[in-house]
Each structure stands twice: as C-alpha cells, then as structure tokens.
C-alpha cells in the first residue's frame, strides 16, 4: 500500500496560474483572455508579467470563446479561464462549433469546479461540465488531482499538446501530494496504489479521498488499486481494462454528477470490453448548496468514508 503525504493544502487554481505563467515564458504565442475574474482563476500572475499578451474581454463568455477561436486561427495559443459553469456550460455552443468543429489548439479552463466551491452555492458549482465537454468531438478533458499536478498539466496542455482542451480545477485548498518530478502524460492514467481486490478510479480532488479510502480498507485486509484518472478524455483504456480484469470490481469517484462524468466514461468502456460490477460516487442528479467545502463534500457523499462504503458494496457483487 503506497503512502502519500501532503505537502500542505493548496488550491488547484494556484497550480493553474503558475502553469500558465511557466508555459507562457517558454512560448510567446500563448495569450490570456480575461473575463473579469482574472485573480480568482489564478491568471493574475500571467497578466502582471505579460500585460501585452493579456486581453480583457469582460463578462461576456460567449464572445471570449469566439475570440479564442479567432486568435487560435491566427497562430496564437489562447488560454481562457473562468468558473466552469460559465467557461464550459454557458458557452457550450461556441466551444462546440468555433473551437471543436474548427479543431483549434486552445485551453479552456474550468475553474471553481465541483461542489467544493462552497458558500457561493449551486449556481456557481460546475457539476455537469465533464459530461458536456467530453461529449464534444475533438475535445480533450483533463482534471488533475492537486495543485502540483495542475501546474504540470497546464504546461502539458499548452506546450506539449495540440487541439481543444478543457482543464478542470477547483477553488478550495486541497491536499497537495503529487511529486514535482512526476511523469505526467495527457491520456495516461497514474496508478497511485497497487491492489487486486477492487479498483477506485478517481479524478480531481477525489483522488486524495480515494487514497484515504484505500488506506482505511487496507486495515480490513483489502488491497485496493487507486487510479488517478487525470484525463477523462481520451480515457486510458489500458489502465481501465487491466483494473477490470485484475481486480474485478470498480468504484469511480468524482466531484461531478454521476450522469455523464468519469463513471459513465469508465462504464461505457468496460461494459463493452470486460464487464465487472461498478459503483459510482458523485453527485446524484441534484444541485448543490451553500456551505463550507468539507461539510458539503461530507453531506453529498464525496468523502473517503463514502468511497470505502461503496467499495464494500461493490465487493458483495464481485464474483
């Protein structure tokens, strides 16, 4: 059982901001688009260092996405980030046609994703963005698990990738535990803990909760595999197939509706290739509400204890 230690609590949006700046230092084609909440999404670092490459377009997300397409068509690599509810959902048709149908290299950042946005409540908690973004042809969907990984993923999306990409990250400080020197490849899952009794496939902040759940279950003698599915599309079929074949039971965990998210992506694949019993941890077709992040995660079952419970449940159906 692998042990992970936090280096502290850091918001993934901070990793995003640092990643954009670092990538931009290496490639002057990278531009930032501002939709009024530059500081909140961590883009202020970039805007301060490269004011001439930062374009403010105001609270007009549809226009931001259209302009991103025009910039990308003119040889730029634009980064547009705002709350996921706006960047992915308000603008969906613009992303679908102007970005994806034109197949342009542009980074759409979905900030403040999930219920851990907290006190702002349901209107600002993006819980359907993965489902919508992954349904779009040509789109890649990345959802890193901590601040360090978000920084590395952001750089990968900008400097080692080409095409439309949606990068999802959060507002609340969460355990920062992955290594600075980690091997990160878009589309290649990370196996964080080996095991053969069951697999937890998690994404985003839920990866930490999955590791905690695996630790708890380990005390009961269960060896649980934990997969950090930081790229939801394209899904790492190899890692999922091996998990299904070698552990025979899968629980998915995400800070997102269970409809259409990571769990659905995994289920779509394994039902066609190697069906095994599955359980889904996520929002169960309902809106969130105001509250402190940890309390909300607990209330809506987005916690290590609930994941562990689902593992026990799925094990009863394993044959």
């Amino acid at each position, binding site marked *: 059982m692998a042990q992970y230690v936090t280096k502290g609590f850091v918001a993934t949006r901070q990793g995003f901001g640092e990643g954009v700046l670092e990538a931009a230092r290496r490639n002057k084609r990278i531009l930032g688009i501002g939709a009024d909440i530059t500081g909140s999404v961590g883009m202020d670092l970039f805007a301060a260092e490269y004011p001439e490459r930062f374009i403010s377009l105001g609270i*007009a997300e549809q226009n931001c996405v*259209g302009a991103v397409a*025009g910039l990308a068509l003119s040889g730029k690599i634009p980064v547009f980030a705002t709350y996921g509810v706006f960047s992915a959902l308000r603008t969906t048709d613009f992303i679908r*046609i102007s970005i994806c*149908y*034109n197949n342009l290299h542009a980074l759409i950042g979905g900030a403040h994703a999930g219920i851990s946005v907290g006190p702002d409540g349901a209107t600002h908690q993006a819980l359907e963005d993965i489902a919508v973004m992954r349904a779009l042809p040509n789109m890649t969907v990345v959802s890193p698990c901590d601040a360090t990984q978000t920084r590395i993923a952001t750089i990968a999306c900008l400097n080692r990738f080409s095409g439309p990409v949606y990068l999802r990250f959060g507002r609340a400080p969460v355990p920062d535990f992955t290594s600075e020197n980690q091997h990160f490849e878009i589309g290649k899952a990370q196996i964080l803990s080996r095991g053969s009794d069951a697999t937890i496939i998690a994404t985003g902040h839920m990866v930490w909760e999955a590791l905690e759940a695996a630790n708890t279950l380990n005390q009961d003698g269960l060896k649980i595999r934990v997969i950090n599915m930081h790229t939801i599309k394209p899904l790492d079929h190899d890692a999922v197939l091996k998990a299904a074949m070698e552990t025979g039971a899968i629980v998915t965990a995400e800070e997102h509706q269970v409809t259409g998210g990571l769990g659905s992506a995994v289920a779509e694949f394994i039902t066609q290739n190697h069906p095994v019993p599955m359980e889904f941890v996520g929002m169960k077709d309902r809106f969130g509400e105001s509250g402190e992040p940890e309390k909300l995660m607990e209330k809506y079952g987005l916690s290590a204890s609930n994941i562990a419970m689902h593992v026990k449940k799925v094990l009863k159906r394993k044959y």
Partner: protein
Amino acid sequence: MDIESLERVSKIIRTDIVKSLAKAGSGHLGGSLGMADIFTVLYFHALQHHPEDPEWEDRDRLILSIGHISPVLYATLAHAGYFPVEELLTLRKLGSRLQGHPGREHGLPGIELSAGSLGQGLSVAVGMALAGKMDEKKWNVFCINGDGELQEGSIWEAAMSASHHKLDNLISIVDRNGVQIDGKTEDVMGLEPLIEKWRSFGWHAISCDGHNMEDLIYAIEEARYVEGKPIVILATTKMGKGVSSIEDDHHWHGKAPTESEAIKFIKEIEEYYQD
C-alpha cells in the same frame, strides 16, 4: 476590375447558386442570391487574396458568420479560382467538400471558419483582428453578418469588445435584407434604429446599397481608411435579388428550387441583367 466586368461575374455567380441549389435539393436560395453582388465586389475587387495560395499569410480574412448562405461563398470562391467550378454541383452531398454550412475539416480551399450557428462569427473575427493588431499586420478581417443574426446577444458582446479594443482592422458587412424565416425582421424582433445601435456601440457605421457595385466599392474604401474604430457596413439588399418572382419573399429563405423552377429562375436572371 471595372463595374461592367463585376456585373458579368455576379450574373455567373447568381446562375451557379441556382444551379447548385437545384442539384442539392435543399439549401438557402434567397439570402445567397441577395449577397451575390457583395461577394463579387469582395473577391473580385476589394479583398487582398491569392486563390492559388489560400493560406497566404497577408491575406484579408473573410468570415462567413451566416454559414447558411454558403452557396454564394462557394460559387464566388470557385469562380475566383479556389477550386473547380464543377464541384459546385456536389453541394450538400455525402462526401462533398461543400458542406451545407462551411466546415474546414472537409478541406475546401478558401474557407476561413467552420460556422453556421448564428452569432459566433463576429466574435471569431474580433479574435482574428486582435491577433492582427498584436502582430502589426496590415490585413483586415471582413465578417459577413445577417440582419436577423443581430438578434443574437453575443453579437453585441462582440460589438462592445471590438470598439473597446479599437479594432479598425475589422469590417462587418451586414446583409440588411429585412427578412428572416418567420417574416420581416421588424415583426419578428425589431432591429431599428439599427445604425444608431452600432454607432452607440462605438462603431463607424456606413449605409449602402448592397446591389450597387460602385456604392459597395466606395463603402469598403471608406472602411479601410477609418482609424481607431471597427466598421460596419449596413448593406441594404433584397433576398432573392435577380430572380424577380421570388425577390423579398421570405418563403425563399431556406428553400431550394426544383429543376423546372431553376430553369425559370435562370431565365429571370438573364432578363435582370438585360435591363
């Protein structure tokens, strides 16, 4: 190219629009015919472009935001030399490079943007114009918008941002034909006073007759000299122009002619150019 030659080109374009739509069996005839003069002036007089080198870096960019009038774009591009004229008869067919609404992934030369969902093209044009300014390029971005399309809120987001960033390299040409699918624009959702709307958004607005070649040439000339503001040309047109029996009839917004109607319409086009 002189006016007489432009007229000759626009006649061929109109004829080919009718032919390609008749062959396709569906598509948007009215708006395509109404924009034939504007497209002729653009591609045969105003735009800096090289059909043999569609990706030429210093070309003027043309964004067709109203992708549904693709037949006029296709007919113009073909006659300008971007691809063989015979290919116009593949419009909307399976495997064709001439999609119902332009799609770059199908590889037709001269297509700058896959578009067709209304209200997006002007934002894309804003992005291109921003890039042009940033790189100190001389090229302009021309964006073709429909008047009904101006009912989309995103158009006004784009309009606000273009004047905020002083994009004088952006020229929108609005097809002011006054009709949309449900009827007259002023009955469906009134746009007037339209020129004042654009001016209040900080644009340099020009009105012109969208069927008068000379008028169009002057309007575009004026647009190129404006500094510090984006430019909109409100071009008054008639849907179906050139085919007298369908002019101004909104029923022909989204319809294609049958083979026999096409023969009759082409005859009407001949008569129109004889007057």
